């Protein structure tokens, strides 16, 4: 469990980093918090010739709300995101979810950009990014582009980022007033990688019904997924237990959860049903369903 040889480059600016990425694009990786990349290196599952280490790179860790958008610098540590007042105000769902994102020591080092760029199937950050219609900003030498999280995530551990690109920022639209969030997850252990998880943002209508609903799931597919069918079925309705249960069940029946050592597809689906129902009812402020 020792990494193969690599060159370590430590740019001071985004421009410098982009130059390095362009120059070594045939075999390069960005090093952020290292909480996933180091494990890949020591198990020799990733063998980049060059690491571009962003830890000394300026201008990448701001957390701020501007023009109705929460902007998270890619190198903002997960713990900082979790605790930032701007996040509590604009996207409390993210703070609630990051609480689950591994042990404290890992969140102290791990970055929000790293979590998004890594696109792990169990990532809370990716699930929330999907749920809240986040956008991912990618920089490269001489330019940058921005895309919806939905388009950014391609497959487990695969994203739309090109080798010469780096994530510089995650942008999350500030939640509409009155929106209520809930995040639920389950692993084998009390604190564990998520085997199944649900993120919900629910905006109530003045009449007590659901004006808008966004639901994303971990464990429903190879990647975190938006459960569009649930959203459609419940929009404009009241969050009543039976209705929610049916909507959730119908949506999950269309999903293909993975089967692995942690759980079978059937178990993931069964657990997600319970979690989704619980999370939606919690966000709706409704009474818990009778057992």
């Amino acid at each position, binding site marked *: 469990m020792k*990494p*193969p040889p690599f060159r370590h480059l430590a740019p001071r600016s985004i421009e410098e980093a982009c130059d390095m990425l362009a120059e070594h694009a045939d075999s390069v990786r960005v090093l952020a918090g290292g909480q996933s990349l180091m494990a890949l290196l020591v*198990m020799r599952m990733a063998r980049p010739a060059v690491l571009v280490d962003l830890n000394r790179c300026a201008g990448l860790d701001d957390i701020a709300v501007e023009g109705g958008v929460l902007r998270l610098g890619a190198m903002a540590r997960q713990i900082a995101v979790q605790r930032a007042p701007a996040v509590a105000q604009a996207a409390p769902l993210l703070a609630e979810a990051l609480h689950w994102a591994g042990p404290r020591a890992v969140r102290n080092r791990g970055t929000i950009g790293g979590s998004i760029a890594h696109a792990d199937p169990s990532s809370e950050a990716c699930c929330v990014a999907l749920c809240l219609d986040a956008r991912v900003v990618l920089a490269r030498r001489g330019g940058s582009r921005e895309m919806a999280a939905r388009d950014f995530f391609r497959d487990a551990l695969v994203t739309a980022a090109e080798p010469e690109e780096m994530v510089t920022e995650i942008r999350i639209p500030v939640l509409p007033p009155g929106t209520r969030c809930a995040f639920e997850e*389950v692993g084998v*252990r*009390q604190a564990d990688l998520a085997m199944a998880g649900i993120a919900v943002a629910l905006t109530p209508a003045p009449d007590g019904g659901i004006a808008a609903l966004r639901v994303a799931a971990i464990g429903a597919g190879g990647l975190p997924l938006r459960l569009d069918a649930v959203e459609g079925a419940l929009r404009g309705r009241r969050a009543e237990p039976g209705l929610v249960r049916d909507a959730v069940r119908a949506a999950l029946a269309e999903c293909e959860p993975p089967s692995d050592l942690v*759980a079978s597809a059937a178990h993931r689906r*069964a*657990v997600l049903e319970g979690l989704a129902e*619980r999370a939606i009812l919690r966000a709706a402020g409704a009474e818990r369903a009778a057992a």
Partner: protein
Amino acid sequence: MDGPAPAGPFGARLPRKEDPRLLRGEARFLDDIEVPPGTLHAVFLRSPHAHARILGIDASGVRDIPGALVLTAADLPQLPPLRPDLPLPGFAVTERPLLCRDLVRFVGDCVAIVLAEDAYAAEDAAELVAVDYEPLPAIVTLEQALAEGAGSVHREAPDNVLFRNQVTTEGFDAAFAAAPHVFRETFVGSRVATVSLEPRGCLARHDPGLDETVLWSSTQVPHLVRNMLCEVLGLADTAVRVIAPDVGGGFGVKASVYPEEILAIAAARLLGRPVKWAGDRQDDFLSSSHARDMRFGVEMAMDADGVLAAIRIDVLANAGAYGGIPFGSSIEAGGGPRTFPGPYRFRHYAFRTRAVATHTTPSGPYRGVAAPIAFMAFEGMMDRAAAALGLTREEIRRRNLLDTADFPFVNASGIRYDIASHHRTLTKALALSEWEDFVLRRDADPDKIRGIGIACVTEQTGQGSTRYRARGLLRIPGIEAARLKMEPSGRATLAVSQTTQGQGHLTTFAQMAAEHLGIPPAHITVLEGDTAVSPFGSGTFASRSVVAAGGAVITAAEVIAKKMKRIAGHLLEADEADIVLRDGRAEVVGTGLSVTIEEVARTAYAMRPKGVPPGESFGLDTTEYWDQPFSSVSAAVHVAEVSIEKATGRVKVERYSIVHDCGRVVNPMIVDGQVHGAVVQGLGPALMERLVHDEHGQLLTTTLLDYTLPTALDVPDIAMEHIETPALDTKGGVKGMAEGGTIGAIPVLLSAINDALRPHGAWIHAIPVRAEQLLRIIRTQPGTPEG
């Protein structure tokens, strides 16, 4: 704790002497030892196949790595294979090559040693060694190994049975046939890894000028490692020194001697350079012994009142590809039926047991060995019998537990119990756990179902030479020794034939000796883990320390104390019989006359005007050996309360209580810590830990991501009380105790889960109990409303 706090050091809740160093990061584990100049760093090239023929090894590629070199079996032709089992009845004598030449038998079998200037380069070089394998069909499971036409792992064991034993007590058949009730079930353990925080590793150095060979190894058994180095490499024991530095956990996995230790020395001697190997987590999962891939078929015959009439069991243990050293292939298969009878009174017993070879990592001892699965089976049957006979679970146990009048008792597998307090322990445990009030808690949360479980367990500890002879394990002496040397200052060093991996020996042994010497434990420095310093002995395993080594420590302390009294009597012109040693002084009882212990010690070393008594030798220095004649059997009752979340099937351990009797307790804080840790090592296998192979014998769980160990958040607070029934068969009234927590935790958690499932009409008989299985039961078997 019963009774008042103890006055002397024995029984005191002393903080561990070893902790400040460990907590400050000042300990020196194997990887912290500064390596001598010129050290080569080793990687063991391991087979990626469970079973394959080696057609060729091409190491020419490593030329690209400066300084790297590769040793294969061809480079070490004089190395004989290991022979783990001895030619005794019941054993098949098989061989384990140190480096595989023609055939590999598990994923992880060593094929070559790759050496380089640092560990990084060694891994780079290892990737460049091309081994040409012809994969062969692998035998992975017990069923496969025992199936007709399965093929065999070893030629010498065509039916794959490495060890077998069968015993039927006299009158068994009649007793079994006469019983009105027979309950049957098969219980299945989970294959687990020990996962000591520090993986195995060693540093080998040979000094040709001094003809001295030194091995630093993360081991529990330095003397046994030395013995094997001598046996295999033909070295003189006077020229070999084995040192266990600080060891980051052992739990049995480091009580075996492994090929890497022998190969490191062989390579260091061949190349004339020190060789270091620091195993990593993957090495550990693949090559450190696995454990408890076992099943117990039980047939329990009872009379109409729920009193045990006769029990027959059929035990299988997956021994993996090879027997280990020194425990051979019989460790689990032999241990299962031996520990099974537990705290219960029954005489008619029949068992058959087999250790079965497969193409998987060798099995070996792990905290409790087979006992956690044995008690999962026994206690599981007691719960089933109680339900079938309409008795409460505590009542059926009361009707069968050994009582004061039964002792001394020799159980159906021939183990002697000197004294125990099973009934009191049970009563206390029921009170501590608020067992009677559980009905009020059962339905407290509508989102969960709850259950409560009970397990009455025993733990066989402190085995001596006769036990190991009887088990055919001739490489284990079974004796222990202590050298106690009081220096002129009145302080003492106590070199013990063992080594410590967290058990607190440096504190416990000092307390045991201090009681006799009249000096504070802080004035006794315990030395362990170095064959050049420690007297000869067996090592630290099987909860033997406090009994087997403790016997030697107490004996040595008694010898020195006697001599101190003779000298003090001489100095004080009093009868030695009237002298007591306490509070740093030797005093004549009832007179106020005394001298300091230092004065006595200086006298012993001819440093005072007055000499030693006529005919007395100089010095205060003795080495005493101890052979524990009978095992000592500790006991405990565990009660656990679990909840199962209806939406997810997740189990939470809500409450946990233990009442425990291990004789006199030397240091309650250390005993509590040992029980806590042991419970966690039972909770993991019961609820989440499992090693998984695919059908080709590929281990799929080789990281701590896949092999889920419990974290602190999964562990409940543990309420614990001790009953101290002084042992009669040991020095000091002590019994060993470090494995009982694991032995109790697995059965009690299964019992609690089965209790929760009672309304659903399901009985689980295999571990780990997974949320998936529970959710399925809860959803598909809605069960009876009255619960």
